[in-house]
């Protein structure tokens, strides 16, 4: 989900644009503290970076705990700038479609968050978060009783198998690929070209459904993250009887508390209650409001204006993945009545100045640049004090294993850059190596970043040649292995709260390929070995290995200079209750809302 590249990342880009304007911490804003509060930030970060726990059957039993003061009835209006790229769960990877999927679809497992921000994986359609055996190579899930889709058909293990197998079909190309790859390897489509539609299925040695209620996954190596993987919206259940293949993308059948009443691509989406959803089987979701009206095409600027004005129907409105628009932040934070209607928190993204290690081969040059970059001015360009926090390392505050004080380059003490240290490292470095080509997107933010990078690096004697790149295809251009750039600013975030979804995709040597996210082209035997080791370990042991990998990367390899952590800052109407920041979605928790007066 979490690079800024590609169509799938477009919604994320929107979220990031908003996140760059964020305030501090992860909480509902009570309107009393609108300033920068580093201590509170770190407290909130420690909550967001807590390890996820796996719940048993008791923790997976519905209904979800009642929200104090919650009322039933009414319709929430949801504003979003761009239309949804997909509604088919199999094609869902980005945060906008993911938010909608939380209302519409159920998966085998789901993330549950309590009021203190603790996150656990619970059974959603399954009775619990799964039973691991064979050291994590085998996982067994048992379906709950009484689960039906919106058409009233019972959900069985055959539907789960169908959901997995249809991911092998060619019309599914935009969703996550973790599960398929784990089950059948990188060339997984060849294992089941028909996607299960032709009557052929995955062998029982890979995916078994011994009865209507039981699903067994078999892997060739331990997959201890599986419960978290299956909680992704991309693995939500598609009932076999309802599947219309490619057409399903515009008319999917719901299993969650809401179903689609009408959908106009890129224009509007109306959700109403799904009467076949049984709250007793769902420990996460609520069905307080009668429905949701999604209004696409409303810019963040207009969303913010409407929500600040808080008139008429806008009292019942929320932002889906957009945030408070930059120029209106002061209007929001200076008005306590408006400010108390915001939610804010860290996003999972770490922005870094990534080095193309095929071109910037000298470790001292990379380290010197890492010392020299000015996080402070870069954050200022992203929205001033609300743009984010200085990042001293590669792990975001949302990631288990986050170390707020791990700061090998002294970034927290000298966020404006350590010029002396950089100059010291550059002694003896030939002038030719001090000429660096910096690629930046031709957007407003890109221009600001260009100025900040040029300014910081020229102070230590670098000759920065800045190259403008079309912002729409920026990641495509820097994703080419033979790209002509030495460095570029990139962002990455976790798919679920585990370093495996950060370290593996962006630093694994296998990911050095055209279009792949290892933009630094890191090919390091020790890194690869640590990744392999961590992926085969139990979570508590893996955490140490991931930490070792991060430290080694940042201190010995230096594929990028960590710059800043992004944040999210969203506004909702005064009649919307239950607003809170969702640690997993890094957005307003859409499953936790009600209207105070319907």
């Amino acid at each position: 989900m979490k690079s800024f590249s590609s169509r799938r990342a477009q919604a994320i880009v929107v979220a990031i644009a908003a996140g760059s304007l964020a305030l501090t911490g992860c909480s509902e804003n009570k309107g009393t503290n609108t300033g920068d509060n580093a201590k509170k930030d770190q407290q909130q970060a420690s909550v967001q970076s807590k390890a996820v726990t796996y719940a048993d059957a008791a923790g997976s039993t519905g209904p979800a705990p009642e929200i104090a003061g919650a009322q039933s009835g009414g319709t929430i209006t949801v504003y979003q700038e761009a239309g949804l790229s997909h509604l088919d769960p199999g094609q869902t990877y980005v945060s906008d479609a993911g938010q909608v999927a939380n209302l519409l679809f159920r998966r085998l497992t789901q993330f549950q968050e309590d009021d203190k921000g603790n996150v656990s994986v619970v059974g959603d359609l399954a009775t619990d978060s799964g039973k691991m055996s064979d050291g994590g190579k085998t996982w067994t899930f048992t379906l709950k009783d009484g689960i039906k889709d919106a058409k009233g058909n019972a959900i069985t293990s055959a539907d789960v198998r169908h959901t997995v197998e249809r991911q092998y079909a060619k019309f599914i190309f935009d969703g996550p690929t973790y599960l398929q790859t784990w089950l059948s390897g990188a060339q997984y489509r060849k294992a089941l070209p028909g996607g299960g539609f032709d009557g052929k299925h995955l062998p029982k040695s890979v995916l078994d459904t011994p009865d209507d209620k039981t699903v067994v996954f078999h892997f060739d190596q331990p997959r201890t993250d599986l419960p978290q993987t299956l909680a992704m919206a991309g693995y939500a259940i598609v009932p076999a009887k309802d599947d219309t293949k490619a057409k399903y993308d515009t008319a999917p059948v719901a299993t969650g508390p809401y179903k689609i009443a009408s959908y106009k691509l890129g224009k509007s989406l109306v959700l109403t209650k799904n009467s076949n959803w049984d709250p007793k089987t769902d420990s996460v979701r609520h069905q307080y409001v009668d429905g949701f009206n999604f209004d696409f095409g409303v810019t963040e600027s207009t969303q913010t204006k409407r929500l600040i004005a808080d008139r008429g129907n806008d009292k019942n409105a929320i932002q889906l993945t957009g945030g408070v628009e930059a120029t209106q932040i002061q209007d929001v934070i200076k008005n306590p009545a408006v400010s108390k209607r915001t939610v804010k928190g860290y996003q999972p993204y770490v922005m870094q100045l990534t080095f193309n290690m095929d071109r910037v081969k000298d470790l001292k040059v990379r380290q010197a640049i890492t010392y020299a970059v000015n996080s402070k001015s870069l954050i200022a360009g992203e929205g001033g004090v609300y743009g984010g926090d200085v990042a001293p390392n590669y792990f975001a505050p949302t990631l288990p294993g986050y170390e707020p004080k791990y700061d090998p380059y002294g970034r927290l003490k000298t966020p404006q850059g350590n010029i002396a240290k950089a100059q010291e490292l550059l002694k003896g470095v030939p002038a030719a190596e001090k000429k660096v080509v910096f690629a930046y997107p031709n957007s407003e933010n890109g221009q600001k970043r260009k100025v900040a990078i040029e300014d910081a690096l020229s102070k230590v004697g670098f000759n920065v040649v800045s190259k403008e790149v079309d912002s729409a295809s920026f990641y495509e251009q820097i994703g080419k292995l033979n790209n002509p750039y030495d460095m570029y600013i990139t962002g990455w975030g976790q798919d679920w709260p585990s370093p495996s979804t950060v370290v593996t995709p962006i630093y694994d040597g296998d990911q050095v390929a055209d279009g792949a996210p290892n933009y630094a082209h890191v090919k390091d035997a020790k890194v690869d070995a640590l990744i392999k080791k961590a992926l085969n370990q139990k979570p508590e042991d893996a955490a140490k290995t991931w930490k070792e990998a991060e430290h080694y990367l940042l201190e010995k390899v230096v594929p990028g200079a960590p710059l800043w952590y992004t944040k999210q800052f969203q506004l909702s109407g005064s009649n919307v209750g239950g607003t809170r920041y969702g640690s997993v979605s890094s957005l307003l928790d859409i499953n936790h809302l009600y209207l105070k007066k319907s």
Partner: protein
Amino acid sequence: MLQFILRRTVGALVTLFLIGAATFFLFVAAPSDYASLACGKDCSPQRLEDIRQALGLNLPIAQQFWDFMSGIFMGRDFPTGHCSAPCLGQSFYSGDMVWNTIMDRFPTTLTLTAGGAVVFLVVGVGAGMISAYKRGSMLDKFATGTSMVLSSFQIYFLGPIVLWIFVYSTGWMDNPQYTPITQDPWGWFTGMLLPTLVMASIFTAQYTRMARSSMIEQLAEEHVRTARAKGMSRKYVFYRYAWRGALIPIVTVLGIDLSSMLGGAVVTELTFSLQGIGRLAVDGAIHKDLPMTMGVMLFGAFFILIFNILTDIAYAWIDPRVRLS
């Protein structure tokens, strides 16, 4: 007349084909392709190939072009079903049929265009004509001054001010939105009133100035002077002779303006968060969505060509000296 229309129709079809070809090949020649943009995080050569295959981008360029153009007349088959003629392809981004999307968005743009045209033709041309008729009067000065001020405004400036006053600040109006007239006529009228008036106000100013200068020019023509010398009243000459002559430059510009607006009132739609053809064009370009971009381009070009023909016919109707040949 029939021969003229037939000839121009054939010419229009050839022009549309050339526009389609130019758009297609310029798009294909661009430095990035949609499959790479869509490939994303888990991008691999295999995944890239899957996307290309799913979208038909693995086919030869010439075949892709032929499939697109022939689909307009004969329809096409896609994995999601048949796309009846006129088929403008299937959006890479949304998977929806482009023609269906255009038809869904067109009523919004049509409302803006038609509503705006009524306002700026009645108010703008009317004020310009009266200004010319009463040249030098206070009314003339007021109309000229107002049009000068309004024409220096832009929709992206005037729109937010109007929204702030009538929607966010006072709450006198609801957020602008399009509601089908068949579903709720009052909702349709009130929802589109502000955007239509704001867009029309800019055009009104331009038409006022144009109508005024055109009419003043006409009133100075020899045939008008001769008519007056023959004893015809000023009012009679104004409505019988000068008015029609003054309309020719207005009709010319009107044809261009209407066709441009039907092709998408981008700024108005973005300013008022409306989902019309203009926004579709912008989204298509941003998402590198070739079928959508091609579809919207051809749709807009169609109106430009149609209004060109209608403008020529209008010339002949307004001024009998003009012959369609």
